[in-house]
């Protein structure tokens, strides 16, 4: 046991107090905001750093923001370390100077005690619009940052308590919905205000010196926990490769993600060298977002009680060369980099699964599909409908993948269909699981769902950002890949196949269908308990034909029973025909020979 320099009981009480501050900041944003992005998607984070800008406590946080606050604070310190005073409030969003993508606006407020800077309150929120060529500032087909909206370098929004009206005016004139943006900026300021009040109580109780020491100890404590947990993992080097179909600009040109984990003792290096050069479409990451994806995946194999702060990040080094997809340089467009972030997490899961075969899941649906429908009513009033959802997990070494559960990287909620229909010129005609899409395995992948949208006004622009069409969600250790995503126009009639990424005119009465990809399976499908196969057939997650061709399980659908003798026979034939000398660690495509044996 490491001996701590502070009283362990006082420390626990202090830790409780500062994490309460960060949590209460998060609640303040949640309750104050107007924007559905913040509310339903929880696309924001709050935190609390020491006087030197080292993150000590993160509140409830979008996992995608894990690495963002330290990077942003570094930028603030780089510009203003010697030019900071009580009453200052900082604002920024520039991806090439500490930010992530333009909609994410950071607000920081330093907290002083007798002239000494003791802490920073930190917030970052995804704003509904920051200008640029497409409403929502989220377009995946911009090819340079200059098209994506207003770039805010680190600046003082308040100087010694005085609001800089020039900055506000610049924002007001460059965004589509200034009332909403200002409302959410107010939420961020309110959160900083709450933090300031409560931190004053902390300083009053413990005194400035103990407070400083305890903030350090909070970080050191997280580092000790992280290193202790890393020490329990095996040493070595593991690599994994995955591909994004394309960037929606250079159609059909696949994008490589490649990661290498190097684990020695109590340290982990996550190295993205070998990944694709940055691309023209707007899916380039900043290094901070690549760090978030890396931390998120590593965290999922560490114990749950480690607090999120600088201490965790000290033990995990993330490398990604500039000019690549994970670390874009000017003029990289990055508005829709969410896709790359989700897929880096999945790529990390692949590498971690090589390291820890019995602890990590196969690929899920690859994160959310973005569907937006926007336009103007006949009276020129605008509408924007945005739908970012996902829900099929990859199978786990001990259980099936979850059906209808958000990707770990962004714990998003689903808006109600009835509320959507009451507020938007859209009907949702179906929202249901789709059978026969989940990857087979001893544990099957998550079952995906589809959504059908009908436009109820004259005309709109439909923009879709989906993936996993060409490169399906991989299965692990014998598990099959999940089935690809699908897009259709007029799904129950002409059934016109649409590409995975598209922008097109959407006319009254037209119906668009998106089918999510299925989660990858884990383990040999022929080892799946036939009772579980029967249950999936009974629940129409799986057809009886696929039960036979994928699992070798023969089911009598009249009496809902398993034909054990036939099952044994089919499974034996399948085992013989597939010719595995060893269980394939990763599978991207079905083996046709197995299907043949089942028939």
């Amino acid at each position, binding site marked *: 046991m*490491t*001996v*701590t320099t502070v009283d*362990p*009981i006082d420390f*626990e*009480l202090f830790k*409780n107090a500062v994490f*309460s501050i960060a949590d*209460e900041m*998060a*609640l*303040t944003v*949640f309750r*104050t905001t*107007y924007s*559905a992005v913040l*509310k339903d998607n929880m696309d924001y984070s709050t935190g609390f750093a020491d006087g030197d800008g080292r993150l000590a406590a993160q509140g*409830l*946080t979008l*996992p995608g923001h894990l690495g963002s606050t330290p990077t942003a604070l570094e930028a603030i310190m780089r510009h203003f370390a010697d030019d900071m005073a009580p009453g200052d409030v900082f604002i920024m969003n520039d991806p090439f100077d500490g930010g992530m993508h333009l909609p994410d606006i950071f607000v920081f407020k330093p907290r002083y005690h007798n002239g000494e800077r003791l802490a920073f309150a930190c917030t970052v929120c995804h704003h509904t619009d920051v200008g640029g060529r497409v409403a929502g500032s989220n377009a995946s087909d911009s090819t340079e940052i200059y098209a994506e909206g207003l770039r805010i370098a680190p600046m003082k929004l308040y100087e010694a308590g005085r609001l800089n009206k020039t900055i506000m005016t610049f924002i007001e004139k460059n965004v589509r919905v200034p009332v*909403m943006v200002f*409302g959410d900026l107010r939420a961020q300021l*309110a959160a900083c205000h709450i933090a300031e009040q409560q931190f004053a109580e902390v300083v009053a109780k413990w005194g400035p010196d103990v407070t400083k020491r305890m903030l350090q100890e909070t970080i050191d*404590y*997280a580092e000790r926990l992280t290193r*202790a*947990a890393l020490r329990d993992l095996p040493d070595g080097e593991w690599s994994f490769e995955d591909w994004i179909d394309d960037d929606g600009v250079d159609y059909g040109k696949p994008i490589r993600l490649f990661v290498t984990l190097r684990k020695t003792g109590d340290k982990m290096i996550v190295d993205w060298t070998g990944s694709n050069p940055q691309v023209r479409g707007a899916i380039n990451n900043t290094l901070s977002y690549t760090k978030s994806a890396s931390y998120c995946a590593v*965290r*999922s194999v560490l114990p*749950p*009680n*480690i607090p999120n702060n600088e201490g965790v990040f000290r033990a995990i080094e993330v490398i990604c060369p500039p000019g690549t997809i994970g670390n874009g340089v000017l003029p990289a467009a990055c508005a829709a980099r969410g896709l790359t972030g989700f897929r880096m997490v999945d790529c990390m899961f692949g590498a971690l699964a090589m390291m820890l075969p019995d*602890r990590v*899941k196969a690929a899920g649906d690859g994160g959310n599909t973005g569907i937006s429908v926007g336009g103007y009513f006949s009276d020129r009033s605008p509408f924007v409908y945005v739908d970012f959802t996902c829900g099929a997990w990859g199978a*786990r070494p*001990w*259980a099936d993948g*979850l*059906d*209808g*559960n958000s990707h*770990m990287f962004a*714990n998003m*909620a*689903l808006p*109600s*269909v*009835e*509320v959507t229909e*009451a507020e938007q010129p859209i*009907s949702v*005609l*179906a*929202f*249901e*699981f789709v059978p026969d899409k989940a990857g087979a395995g001893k544990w099957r992948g998550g079952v995906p*769902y589809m959504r*059908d949208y009908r436009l109820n006004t004259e005309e709109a622009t439909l923009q879709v950002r989906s993936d996993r069409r060409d490169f399906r969600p991989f299965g692990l250790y014998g598990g099959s890949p999940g089935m690809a995503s699908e897009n259709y126009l007029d799904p129950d009639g002409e059934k016109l196949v649409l590409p995975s990424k598209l922008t097109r005119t959407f006319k009254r009465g037209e119906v668009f269908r998106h089918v999510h990809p299925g989660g990858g399976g884990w383990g040999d499908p022929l080892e799946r308990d036939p009772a579980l196969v029967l249950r999936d057939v009974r*629940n129409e997650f799986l057809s009886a034909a696929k039960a036979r061709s994928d699992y070798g399980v023969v089911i009598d659908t009249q009496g809902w029973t398993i034909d054990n003798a036939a099952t044994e026979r089919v499974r034996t034939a399948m085992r013989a025909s597939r010719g595995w000398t060893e269980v394939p660690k990763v599978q991207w495509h079905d083996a046709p020979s197995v299907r043949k044996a089942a028939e």
Partner: protein
Amino acid sequence: MAAKVPTFRVGVDIGGTFTDIVLLGRHGAIHTKKISSSVGNYAEAIVDGLLEVFAESGLNGGSIEEIRHGTTVASNAILEHKGARVGLITTKGFRDVLELRTLRMPRLYDMSWEKPPPLVERYLRRVVDERVDAQGDVERPLDETDAKTQVDALLAEKVDTIAVCLLNSFANPAHELAIKAIIADRAPNLPMSISYEVLPEIKEYERTSTTVINAYVMPIVATYLRALRKGLDAARIPARLLLMQSNGGLTTDQAAAERPMNIIESGPAGGVVGAEKLARAKGFDKIITFDMGGTTAKASMVEAGQVMRAQEQSVGAGIMASSRLLTGAGYTLKVPAIDLAEIGAGGGSHVRIDAGGALQVGPDSAGALPGPVCYGKGGTIPTVTDASVVLGYVSPTHLVGGALKIDAERARDAYKRRIAEPLGLSPEQAALGAYRIAAANMIRAIRAVSTERGRDPRGFALFAFGGNGPLFACGIAQALGIKRIVVPPAAGLFSSFGLLYADVEHHFARTFRRLLRGADLAPVDAAWRELAEAARAQLVADGFTDADMQVARSAALHYKGQSYELVIPVPDGEVDASVAALLEERFGVEHERVYGHRAGPDEPVELVSIQVIGRGMSRSGGVPTELRMTRPEPDAGEPRLAYFGAEHGWVTTPVLRRSDLKKPLQGPAIVEEYDATVLVAPGATASLDAGGNITIDL
């Protein structure tokens, strides 16, 4: 002493281990009984317990006016997945609303997370071809032949009940009612749960989940209530039976059987309602209730005589101390319920040092078995109760009037070896640390109902009850700057006792979306009248007259574009433009209070749903202010050493009975009772009022 006129009211609360019974006479006489719960058939313990009280007191079944009952029978059915086999009928294309939920999970980075299994498996969810749009217009008429086929298919699967929830039915229930008629025709006695009747409100997941929960617990609750009635009849106790609802109001046993969704969170409600009424009698405007037992602590807030209610719960979510922001555990139930913040810290919570060298309390617990180390039943990991024993706060020899032996040496040894030595502390320092950290955890629950809603806890009085509440109240109040604590009589059985203070209540709500400004208010006014009429009719059916009923209205409002509402009371009388303007203003004020700001006057306020609460007042009057315990108090104990930190050291502390506080007394002191231990901190002043409440001033 066979009473001719029934004069006693009974409060009964069933817990996992104990069934608590309190009898209250018109003139304040109180009998209490704590007996082991009869797990197979909970009704048995109630009847047996009453018969025991009768034997001890000379009362009989004719002495009982009514029985008020808080029960976890419905929530247990959900937690243990022992409810009915339910069939669900939904709109084509929406078969999986129940299982898809909101897609959100309550734990980040947790690869082992499992969603709660749906209460209706997919093969028992059938779809019918029909479509109503968001405005209530029929887009595709119901295919009745298809509907009959689906109903028959479910009947062939031998379902116990059928739930029906169609898309947009809140706006037009015609198709749901047609299916209801088909079911009634084909299976005349099958229980049903129809979404428009259960919850005529927008949001398909919440409505479906609530309708299904209602169907899922319906048979089990009906069976239980029948068994209880039968048992009472056999014991010649003809008193009527009232059930506590999650919202803090009582309902009749018939109404509970029809809408069991209203009694799911019945258990903890009695204590809060009792505290609210006691506070009103004592002239306290603002209180925080704090109820701590063996495994959890619960806090709630009462302001201006109003219990705070949440519009939605997550049944069986367990305790998510991490944050109220993380949802997705448990089963969503959208009925009003007393808003409780619950955390996993109780007497049984484990205390240990983690890998980073910090002292941790909970969330895992020693449970009933093995229990704390000091129970000597095999527990080896020190608990919060063990800390209280080491510190001398809790009797070092016995609890519950001698029924439970305590081994103080064993507790001290566990603290010494497992906590104190590795941290370089004395056992009492380690135990005090655990006690303070447990208190700090509970403070998070209190913050969740106060500061997180813009309320400063320093202006509130703390009502402490439950077996462990009065033991921690001083520490918590001191940390939060609260100046006054009230420990009610029978604090350890207060969930039962509180039932005696409650009124009958029925809640109704309906979605009604429109901007307040410039709206045609006539249909809103008419709808409100309709709901008020429904509330009144229900109360008349319960046996109330106009003289003893109240009907109150409220509106759920938000700024257009927001997705969460605030509930604002609506004055009586016709709802016209001036009332609409008043509501807008009151909403703005509340928004500022809760969230710290309000929008400008141009920002439109939207009405989301209208609500009505009908209340039937108990005719036998409230609870008398002067109470008289018939159970003799235990003898006062010997003074003992208790540890209050380095500044005080070990202090010889008097051990008293509640009645000893008639003369105000300066702490430190310990009050030992049959069902709880009260700790009075050094420097605090404790006194007893005429109602038998202990007041502690800090």
